[in-house]
């Protein structure tokens, strides 16, 4: 059973529908005990980093998430949820993150010419696998995923970058991972059949 953490800042409808279609059992919860008892957790997220982390703290969700990570159980962060796995974020200030994957969230580089990528980076980008991450090769399609973000995680240890895209000449992590903690900067639940397939493989089906 997958637990989708509901802290009021996620697109729960679409994530729920994706899990339904994949036949994955899940429940949505804002109860820290229920989250702590789960072995597979999705941390969604849309909006601003500082505000989202404040909600996580308000709901006493910090300890449960750290406990899950300590046990070696699975956490999958999506978009802002992926950024929240990092140590800190420089979005509108300086905010502490969950620090499950060491790194810093910084603004994406601006384009240097008219054909560059405008920020926010909105659209479908082809993700290149890094550090032997082999899921992308198993999806049966070119790994194009839907991104919508102005900030990205800079991992402290390059080994934690499992997939990347190039934004205005700079390599930006698209998939980060450390032990059983994964973060997708894109929205697999909005990335068509490829995204659904990646979710299925991440949860072992």
């Amino acid at each position: 059973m997958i637990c989708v953490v509901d802290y009021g800042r996620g697109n729960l409808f679409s994530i729920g529908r994706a899990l339904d279609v994949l036949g994955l059992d899940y429940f949505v919860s804002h109860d820290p005990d229920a989250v702590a008892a789960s072995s597979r957790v999705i941390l969604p997220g849309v909006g601003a980093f500082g505000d989202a982390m404040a909600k996580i703290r308000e709901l006493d969700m910090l300890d449960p998430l750290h406990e899950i990570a300590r046990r070696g159980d699975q956490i999958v962060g999506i978009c802002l949820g992926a950024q929240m796995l990092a140590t800190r974020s420089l979005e509108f200030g300086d905010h502490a993150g969950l620090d499950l994957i060491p790194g810093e969230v910084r603004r994406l580089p601006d384009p240097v010419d008219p054909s560059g990528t405008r920020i926010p980076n909105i659209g479908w980008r082809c993700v290149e696998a890094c550090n032997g991450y082999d899921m992308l090769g198993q999806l049966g399609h070119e790994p194009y995923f839907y991104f919508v973000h102005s900030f990205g995680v800079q991992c402290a240890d390059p080994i934690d970058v499992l997939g990347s895209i190039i934004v205005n000449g700079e390599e930006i992590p698209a998939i980060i991972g450390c032990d059983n903690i994964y973060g997708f900067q894109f929205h697999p639940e909005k990335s068509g059949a490829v995204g659904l397939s990646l979710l299925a493989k991440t949860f072992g089906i």
Partner: protein
Amino acid sequence: MSDVRVIARLDIKSENVIKGIHLEGLRVVGKPGELAHKYYSEGVDELLFMDVVASLYERNSILPIVQDAARDIFVPMTVGGGIRTLDDIKAVLRSGADKVAINTAATNRPEFLTEAAETFGSQCIVLSVEAIKRGQGHWEVMTDNGREKTGRNVIEWISEAESRGIGEVLITSVDTEGTENGFDIDLIQSVARATTVPVIACGGAGTADHIAEVIEATKVSALACASILHYNKCDLATIKRRLRDLGCAVRP
């Protein structure tokens, strides 16, 4: 060449997808669910649902349509038409949409854009602009499907909206919309230069050549297509092949 998204635009009136010319003279072209699924299966990159009568009657009838589509369509969805309050935005996002397109409510009260961006994040706030040409290099912002004048200059309005935190601009030329005679390249070019956020060009696509022209000339991030798809002038695969031939990175 950069990445380009191809968006299918579905203008909704009560339970139908309709299409007009210059946003008027509306004709029924299909059912929202059927067209949305068709374009999804053909590889559309995003869906744009516009409630074309919502501003007029101050009501929102589009939510069940969006919710139904979001049940088994897994690409981003943007919803516009009659978005007036933060609660409207919340309801749309809860229905499975990812972004909202705001026009009338923003021209009435620009602070609404600031409030929306601060509450939901810039990434989900699209400024929708309906433009009519008033002279060389001069376009007026219109509302209510090109019927109501605002007196605002399109380029100045977009600059102001950007400073209020919008994440994207949807620019629709009322002059070319529905004509299938090509985009107003001057307008799209001027808008692209006036803002740093991604621009979605809309209005006038009738052939893959029109799409190639606007992308080459303006380097916009996305195209919103209606007639060209609804009337089967050209399918998504052909449009995308053409964009790939231009060197754009396009999702297959």
